[in-house]
């Protein structure tokens, strides 16, 4: 057991820790997409690689049961940060420690196949989340019930409305007992009654002690749901604190930069 690991276990309730994390994307000066081009340009010595740091020196610690808001302009590195926690990416620098099962809710229904029925897709999607067929069998009724899709469960998903797809995706992904839940702008799907249902499910998770990270551009959602917030800007943490303070500072900053843009 490494040093970081034991720290994580002992310090009460810390479930996510980022230590000096950096993520670098390599961007070729000229966009080379084919092998032929690559060989030609390489031969001509035209290829230089540029570095783009999506995240730089990020230190973050999140405790169990917290509901954290993640805000910042487009391209600030929010999605990259979520990918690190969901272990989709490994950091270029630094270290990411995560304790417990992470349920990534990035875009519902991402793994659905349009030609398969709702029923078939539930099992496929469940397997992507790491569940066995038996486990999915046990969840099946609850999922369909929650998504309110009994009538259409044996219809190919290509005939579903986008709202129905989102409902099914949400129902599959949240019929779990996650330690950490990642929400990337996803509460805006479905009609109002479904949104209420999903919000109350979020509350349920929180009561069970799950840690929730919410990315949103809607500051009212952040203020309503998260006590703490993190403001990311150009790959660095600009501010961490209570949501009220962070959102205020962020709004002020946005307005002043808008003002500057107007003057220019």
């Amino acid at each position, binding site marked *: 057991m490494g040093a970081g690991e034991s720290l994580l276990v002992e310090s009460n309730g810390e479930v996510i820790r980022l230590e000096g994390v950096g993520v670098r994307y390599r961007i070729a000066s000229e966009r080379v997409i084919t092998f032929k081009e690559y060989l030609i340009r390489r031969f001509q010595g035209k290829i230089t690689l540029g570095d783009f740091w999506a995240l730089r020196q990020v230190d973050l610690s999140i405790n169990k049961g917290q509901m954290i808001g993640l805000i910042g302009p487009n391209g600030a590195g929010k999605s990259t940060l979520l990918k690190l926690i969901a272990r989709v990416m490994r950091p270029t620098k630094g270290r990411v420690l995560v*304790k417990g099962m992470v349920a990534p809710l990035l875009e519902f229904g991402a793994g659905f196949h349009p030609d398969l029925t709702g029923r078939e897709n539930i099992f496929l999607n469940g397997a992507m989340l790491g569940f066995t067929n038996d486990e999915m069998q046990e969840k099946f009724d609850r999922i369909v019930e929650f998504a309110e899709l009994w009538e259409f469960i044996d219809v190919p998903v290509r005939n579903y409305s986008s709202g129905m797809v989102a409902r099914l995706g949400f129902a599959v992904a949240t019929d779990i007992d996650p330690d950490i839940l990642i929400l990337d702008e996803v509460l805006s799907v479905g009609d109002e009654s479904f949104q209420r249902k999903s919000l109350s499910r979020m509350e349920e998770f929180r009561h069970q002690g799950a840690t929730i990270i919410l990315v949103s551009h809607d500051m009212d959602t952040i203020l309503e749901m998260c006590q703490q917030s993190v403001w990311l800007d150009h790959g660095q943490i600009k501010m961490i604190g209570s949501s009220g303070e962070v959102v205020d500072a962020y709004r002020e900053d946005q307005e002043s930069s808008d003002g500057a843009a107007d003057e220019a």
Partner: protein
Amino acid sequence: MDKTNQVPIYDSARQGSAALEELRAIFNYRYLIAQFIRRDILTRYKRSALGVAWTMLNPLGTMIILTIVFSRAFGGSQEGYAAYVLSGLIAWNFFAQSTNAATLHLVWGGSLLKKIYIPRTSFAVSATGTGLINLLFSLIPLVLVMLVIGVPIRWTIIFLPIPILFLAMFALGIGLLISTMAIYYADIAEMYQITLTAWMYLSPVIYSPEILPEVYRLWIIRLNPMYYLIELFRMPIYYGQVPDLNLVLISAGIALFTLFAGWMFFTSRSDEFAYRV
């Protein structure tokens, strides 16, 4: 209710052998592999009236055409040319389809890798699994053709799983190699298509190597792994012989080496895929 001691801890800095970790991951996600295979089989046949029969009709149709066109040119010395071609085609199609599917699934389905964690080899492994199921189905028309044209089916058919296993290992290895390169360069998938066509004509699929001049024959045989694998595949079923030990050993070596190389190459780069796809 002390849950904290059992929950899994992920530490990005603690990284053992990527190849071994992937092996463990693919075992843990075996239900996903089964679901992927199920999806591929279902979606391929769902919207066609003939359904799974296509798996059998497809090589059969090609075989009929090739037999009509080539039986005089290539098949003069070959007894039961139709069965010879069909057995070659089945082995070849399995290899070509599995490696192609591995590449296409990773390139087109790879956006999934940016969203949730699933073992990256699941695409290639499930593509090979789907290929195996199709191969088993296409053995039915082969047996029928052999009965019709009078090529005897012997007890040696029980050895068939051996060449199938080696073919699968070889296909998975190549599938992993090609799909890794296809992530980086968009034209690799197309270049591979062309290579496959050339490769097929350089393999004893539709002709017997005996008809080639001695000089070419040695090259084609020595340097072409598919030569050994196709011949080994034909032995228990078409030739009705117990597989020759030498051929088994060479094929096993090729299969093991390719799978090992493909697995190492793929897993050493798969952490970068999320940055690329």
